[in-house]
């Protein structure tokens, strides 16, 4: 399995995709630091402690008004947390080159026919995606702090409390981003095509939120379903203490379910699949 990971890393770093994706991410982060993240916040709805709903006129305004402040190193990670769901789109090229491309260009045939077990192959891809998810998350958190500090100063103390506060927001967000990436892994191994991955992954990230937003217009009870949509849950974690513990648990369990179902389902399907 280690050989598969090493070989894939060799391949990935010799392609353009990783560099293009990272350059776009960096450009976005620089722009956000320079001009604030408010322009990038879209349709955020946040739960309060008592699970009542504050819409875009409530907690969101708090973020937006805070984003109008100068982006100092201390301020940046809390402001950027509202748009962490963007990472699921930045992970898409990585899912495509790590998992789906092997099926699209047929290279998977060479691997399986040379005696590599399907389980090892699947889990090598799983580990690689987790690795890139961590790398992207680290870049997403660390780089803006550095940029903000260099441009506008830190404005506060860089201490253990600051790190704890950042971790409280980003660890659950990372978990949910990875849960979403697992959906991408499942799509790759089920549909075996980059085109199918792109289409289904993007639809899966947008459609449920859009459908629920429409349903909520008819009945507020549909808000309950938001807990089960990773994209929305990622946004919900943006403000520490803004969500009830029970909702937090629901969201984390939902993330777990996505990871387990997609991994187990993916490997079971792949073990029996014909490779074209």
């Amino acid at each position: 399995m280690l050989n598969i990971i090493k070989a894939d890393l060799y391949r990935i770093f010799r392609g353009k995709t990783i560099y293009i994706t990272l350059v776009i991410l960096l450009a976005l982060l620089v722009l956000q630091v320079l001009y604030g993240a408010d322009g990038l916040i879209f349709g955020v709805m946040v739960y309060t402690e008592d699970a009542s709903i504050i819409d875009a006129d409530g907690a969101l305004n708090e973020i937006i008004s805070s984003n109008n402040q100068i982006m100092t190193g201390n301020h940046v990670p809390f402001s950027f947390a509202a748009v962490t769901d963007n990472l699921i789109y930045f992970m898409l090229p990585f899912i495509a080159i790590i998992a789906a491309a092997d099926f699209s260009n047929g290279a998977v045939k060479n691997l399986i026919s040379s005696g590599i077990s399907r389980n090892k192959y699947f889990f090598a891809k799983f580990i690689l995606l987790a690795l890139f998810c961590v790398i992207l998350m680290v870049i997403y958190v660390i780089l803006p702090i550095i940029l903000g500090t260099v441009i506008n100063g830190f404005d506060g103390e860089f201490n253990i409390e600051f790190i704890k506060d950042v971790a409280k927001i980003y660890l659950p967000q990372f978990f949910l981003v990875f849960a979403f990436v697992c959906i991408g892994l499942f799509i790759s191994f089920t549909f075996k095509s980059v085109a199918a991955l792109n289409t289904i992954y993007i639809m899966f990230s947008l459609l449920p939120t859009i459908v629920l937003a429409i349903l909520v217009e008819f009945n507020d009870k549909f808000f309950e379903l938001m807990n089960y949509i990773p994209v929305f849950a990622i946004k919900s974690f943006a403000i520490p203490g803004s969500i009830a513990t029970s909702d937090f648990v629901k969201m984390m369990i939902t993330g777990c379910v996505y990871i387990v179902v997609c991994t187990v389902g993916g490997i079971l399907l792949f073990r029996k699949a014909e490779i074209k």
Partner: protein
Amino acid sequence: MNQNVLQTRNITKRYGKIAAVDNVSMAIQKGDIYGLIGRNGAGKTTLMRMITALTFPNDGELELFGQTSEKGLNQSRRRMGSVVETPALYPNLTAKQNLEYYRILRGIPNKKAVYDALEAVNLTDTSNKKFKHFSLGMKQRLGLALALISNPDFIILDEPTNGLDPMGIVEMREMIKTLKNERGITFMVSSHILSELSLIATRYGIIHDGKLIKELTEAELYEQCQRCLSITVDDTTKATTVLETVLNTKKYKVINNNEIRLYDYFDNTSEVTFQLNANGVRVSAIGEIGDNLEDYFVSLIEEVNLSA
């Protein structure tokens, strides 16, 4: 003693009600170049896909280097290289990078293995060219290089000359022969053109509608396809004496008590008949037999179709 590299026992693959491969039992021995011949859709690729684990049989057993369990088969496949259907590599990587990727993947410590594989298929000059810019012939050769990188004992090639120009076909053929002779690699090569396979294969399996209808050695095929005069006589001993002393030929074979096959005098059957009769041998029948390779293949298929 012959050692089986591959053996299948009643292996079957069905798609719905149609059997793409139907109860195929075959064996490939060490050192063979096994030519698998069949029309398009006969089941050649499906059989190869089962051997390479790209698809699974519904019935039957597969044995590779003496291993039959799933784990054992996977281990045995590490001793195998294959190009099934078209060679599939990463289009944006160069030939060298593609091979380096597979070298790392297979845990081959020797970095020279990449160069050696490229050299074996004469691609060292274009090693820095991206795979997507390769011609079909070059892709086929790089596919073979990929199969060679782990120094395998057994290579499976699915229609390796498909789409190649005449020069490319000759080159591919020579490469297979060289690898067999110099490295002792066993090959399984499929094609729908018997005449092409006849130039390299040492054993043949003819597959039709998923069934292996005939297996034969190089000598048997040669015999089947060689033109000769079949002479039915009353005394084969006396007849062979006449052939050797009067007609000055030793190109004959005694088939049974009444039949001799003469691989000479095709254009002068009357002389043969006359001399045999003149020397006291009664000739009850004489006629030319033997097909060319394509005719033989077609007649076999027709025979099967008629009996079905």
